[in-house]
């Protein structure tokens, strides 16, 4: 049994021994971690100008109080640089907001990962990738910030696979799932600005989410959005299944959804983000007949059911639209929420950079 107590101190002689010891202590996600030696953790805390004992937030259902020191130790283990710590801290603060309901997405059979979306000047300052290989490998900031979030959940939040994390299949984003918006390369309003922050602020948005599903389409805005709406309306997502905590009147769980759009911003010159959301929202839906065929709705298919539709997303603003991905083609992604909006809502927090 892993140590579920408050802190564990270990000693080691060499780097390889230390890495193996971290495995033995159950501190890793399966990949090797950078051993969180005292002086490295201290360096991170110094950079952020924060005290190790300061409480970032609590996970009351698991009796866990998450401190800056624990966040810093996990950021070290994930391979972060000290300057990444303010982003990881803001993401942790956001996850611990009560409306995010972290105990749900960190334990559920649904197997969510925490998608971290970074906006503002910090994206350029820390070289957080918003372009090619958006969800793929190759960039330290994305890889390590996202990984730190998972290690914090496991090591500080007790979301241990098989114990309190009971994901049935999970997804690769549970190792790391951090992107930025290419906001300097589009006329679109950055995600954080649309959510109440100023452009000169840096912010992080966390979203409990399924894996991204790539959407390939030809280069015309309406055609791209038509395909995105079709993918977003799939049966089998959390949004198109019934559930005990959704709105029973609607019959489905109605969740938020993230959509990334890559390619050239020029293609969208006549469209604002609000226009895109207004186009998508009424089209992310499924017929009553289909929902009944999939036993999402319990009664037999009746005449007219094929022409009656149920909306899967509560409001247009619940579509988190992000301009990101490579410039070379019109590849989009659709990322359904882990659960209904009432079960977990995306949260945005300012990144407090070094004073």
């Amino acid at each position: 049994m892993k140590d579920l107590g408050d802190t564990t101190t270990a000693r080691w002689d060499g780097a390889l021994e230390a890495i193996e010891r971290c495995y033995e202590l159950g501190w890793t996600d399966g990949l090797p971690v950078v051993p969180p030696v005292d002086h490295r953790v201290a360096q991170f805390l110094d950079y952020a100008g924060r005290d190790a004992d300061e409480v970032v937030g609590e996970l009351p259902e698991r009796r866990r109080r998450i401190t800056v020191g624990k966040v810093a130790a996990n950021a070290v283990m994930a391979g972060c640089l000290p300057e990444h710590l303010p982003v990881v801290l803001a993401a942790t603060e956001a996850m611990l907001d009560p409306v995010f309901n972290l105990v749900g997405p960190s334990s559920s059979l649904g197997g969510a990962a925490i998608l971290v979306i970074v906006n503002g000047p910090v994206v350029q300052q820390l070289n957080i990738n918003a372009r090619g290989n958006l969800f793929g490998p190759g960039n330290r900031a994305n890889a390590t910030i996202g990984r730190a979030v998972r290690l914090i959940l496991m090591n500080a939040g007790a979301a241990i696979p098989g114990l309190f994390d009971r994901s049935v299949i999970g997804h690769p984003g549970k190792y790391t799932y951090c992107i930025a918006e290419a906001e300097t390369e589009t006329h679109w309003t950055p995600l954080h600005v649309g959510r109440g922050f100023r452009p000169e602020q840096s912010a992080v948005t966390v979203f409990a989410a399924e894996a991204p599903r790539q959407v390939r389409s030809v280069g015309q805005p309406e055609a791209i959005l038509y395909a995105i709406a079709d993918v977003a309306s799939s049966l089998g997502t959390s949004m198109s299944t019934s559930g005990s905590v959704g709105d029973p009147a609607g019959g489905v769980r109605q969740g938020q959804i993230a959509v990334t759009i890559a390619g050239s911003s020029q293609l969208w010159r006549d469209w604002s983000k609000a226009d895109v959301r207004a186009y998508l929202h009424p089209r992310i839906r499924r017929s009553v007949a289909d929902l009944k065929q999939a036993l999402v709705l319990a009664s037999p298919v009746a005449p007219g059911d094929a022409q009656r539709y149920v909306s899967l997303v509560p409001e247009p603003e619940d579509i988190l639209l992000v301009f990101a991905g490579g410039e070379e083609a019109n590849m989009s992604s659709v990322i359904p929420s882990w659960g209904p909006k009432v079960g977990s809502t995306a949260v945005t927090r300012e990144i407090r950079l070094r004073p």
Partner: protein
Amino acid sequence: MHDGIHAEKAGVPSATICTDRFVPTATAMARMWGAPDYPTIFTQHPVENLTRQQLRQRAEALAAQVARVLTGGLP
């Protein structure tokens, strides 16, 4: 588990039924809340796809254990 343990701590008798696939999670939760001997009642997994009638049969089979736990006994 969380709610059952807390009801009990608040002086309200509780009985918690959990499916047997969740034994490690339930046990760890009870330990985490300082109630390692919390008398969880386990039943065969799954219950999600049972019909209404099957669910009723399952509940009837567990009723005696629930009554024992609510009156301070072991399942």
